[in-house]
């Protein structure tokens, strides 16, 4: 048996989870931005043709016959900020030690994530295109699929934060802040994807 002096207190890490989430979000943002840049590059390189009246130049990027379900896409765009709002509500509640509202807000942000996944699946089923049907289709599934994975990550984050909240972790301010940060990042990333992929096409 060894008798040792008490160890010196370790310096308390400052907002470690928030900083790590911010760095991870920046990395994830770069994945999406890199993919958007590739999308734009291929779109710019797509062949062009004149319209039948000869007045317009049409870019043949999205094949004829494919329709983007704009309602579902727009609903997704609106849903992301709602998720961020719920995450911010959790931060507001956590600051006031309001555990029930904090847990409720986290649970709702999880459900919102579920709603976004549902909307994305609706987009896929309404478009009814195959992954291997063409260039546009392959890139469409790749970029929206990556975005979907990031949303699933947000749901996992919400669920973990929710269970920690329900489990009585009242000093979990950092986790709740980091969770909100991730939702803000998702909202920004989807806004770019929505404009480039769903609006500009």
């Amino acid at each position, binding site marked *: *048996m*060894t*008798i*040792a*002096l*008490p*160890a010196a207190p*370790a*310096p308390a*890490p*400052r*907002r*470690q989870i928030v*900083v*790590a989430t911010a*760095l*991870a979000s*920046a*990395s*994830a943002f*770069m*994945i*999406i*931005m*890199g*993919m958007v*840049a*590739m999308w734009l590059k*291929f779109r710019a390189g797509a062949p062009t043709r004149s319209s039948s009246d000869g007045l317009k130049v049409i870019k043949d990027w999205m094949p004829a016959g494919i329709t983007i379900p704009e309602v579902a896409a727009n609903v997704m765009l609106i849903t992301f900020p709602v998720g961020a709002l719920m995450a911010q509500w959790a931060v507001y509640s956590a600051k006031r030690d309001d555990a029930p509202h904090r847990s409720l807000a986290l649970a709702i942000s999880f459900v919102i994530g579920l709603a976004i996944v549902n909307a994305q699946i609706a987009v896929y089923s309404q478009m009814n295109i195959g*992954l*291997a*049907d*063409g*260039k546009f*289709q*392959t*890139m469409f*599934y*790749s970029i929206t*699929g*990556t975005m979907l994975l990031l949303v699933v990550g947000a749901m996992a984050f919400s669920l973990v934060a929710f269970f920690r909240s329900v489990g009585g972790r009242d000093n979990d301010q950092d986790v709740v802040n980091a969770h909100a940060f991730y939702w803000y990042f998702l909202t920004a990333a989807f806004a770019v994807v929505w404009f480039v992929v769903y609006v500009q096409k």
Partner: protein
Amino acid sequence: MTIIDNHVGAASHAQGNGSAFVVSVGQWITSTDHKKIGRLFIGASLLSAVLVAVLGVLFGLERVSPAHMQIFHGDATPQLFSLYQFGLVFAVLAPLFVGIAIAVVPLQIGSRTIAFPRVAQFGFWAWLFGSLMVDISLIGNGGPGGGATDLVDLYLLGVALAAVGILAASLSIATSILTSRSSGLTLDQLSAFSWSALTGSIATLLSLPVMIGTIVYVYVDHTNAKLLFGGNKGISTYLGWSLSQPMTFVFVVMALGVLAEVAPVTAKIKQPMRPVVLTGIALISTAVLGAATQSAHLIDWAGTNGDKVKSILLHSIFNGVPLLGVLIVVLTSLLCLKMGTPRVTGAFVLAFLGAIMILVGVAGNMIYTVKATSLEGTVFSEGIVLYLVYGGLLSALAALTHWAPALWGRVINDTKVIGLALIGLLGTVLAAFPLYIAGFSKQPADTVVGFDYKGPMALWNILSTLGHGLFIITVIGFVALLVDAIRQGTPVSQEVPA
């Protein structure tokens, strides 16, 4: 008072039934001790360095007389070149400095451990298994240009997994520096190496994800349509940028941090012009701009005056600024020597020579990106990568020499290290410089056959082969010195020397 029970009974029981070795291995595999995770990265990277250099020797031998010497089967050459390029950058350069940073940074910032040690541990295993997947796929005819479809997919997954591993470890390093510094230690007071670890990690976190995004596209396309990215042949076109400049500049940032750290210690003075040194290190990290945008801006002397100015301006920002950063660090280290009372140490010699090699590599890239030189597609680019990777390796060996007392509690023999540094310098120059010359003679890159230019073609390739061989001796010699120091060296106090 804290009482610590060493569990003597448990340990003796483990030894008694002969499972002590298994327990030890298990502890290494699952350890969250930052020094152990760092050492795992360092050990695996040094082993990779030897294997990659062996591959360099074999390529060099075959290039000596492409018409007569056939070491590799013709079809296997593209795969082996892919393995060589991936190995140089992702199996040696990047993980080696990540490992050193994981081991050293917590000691420098006064933290007991790295932030999120399990993430760092995951980073090591993800990188290791990713690298193994790449090796297996390339050996089995996968990878760029490979014929086995499943193994091409495995290659893409392997590269992505290795990149995720490097990212996870970089996340741990950057978070540690930003959040776990001892109280009172501000960012501008960080040691030069920790500063370089911070800027290098952030640059990695911003540039490698772009590669992962590209892999997603290439993978989905390859497994399904094969319409967009040229199937197996197109992989190099779309991912090749991640194995060349300016991406490699991002991975050598910490190498310059080592020199900036070691120079004042060698000169026994406080770092002069410290803000300038930190700015220099940060300037090298600006290579992230070129890496994330996948662009190597060329000076093109065509078009209008406006086009020329634009071309020079972009070239200066994307290629000149990192060169300026390297120059600043090298010059300030010389200033240290001038102002102080230097004693030649093995760590300084290695770090300085390593930085000079990196400087030659970055300067070579400035020439390579002048369109009029017509160096694109020649072995000149391989020469640049070799200068950067072997120069980086010399700096990494400097770091290991400098921090051996903190990491292993032993001092490495300085005289022998200086001898190895000189062999390493000769190895790097011989491996890389002949390729610069061969580049001007238009020897094509990524191939060992199909070229026959006027001039001493065999000589350049013999010298390059010899250089790889000398570098193998340097790395193996250093590992032997380190092992010898750990087993028989004089123990020192646990204090970090800087």
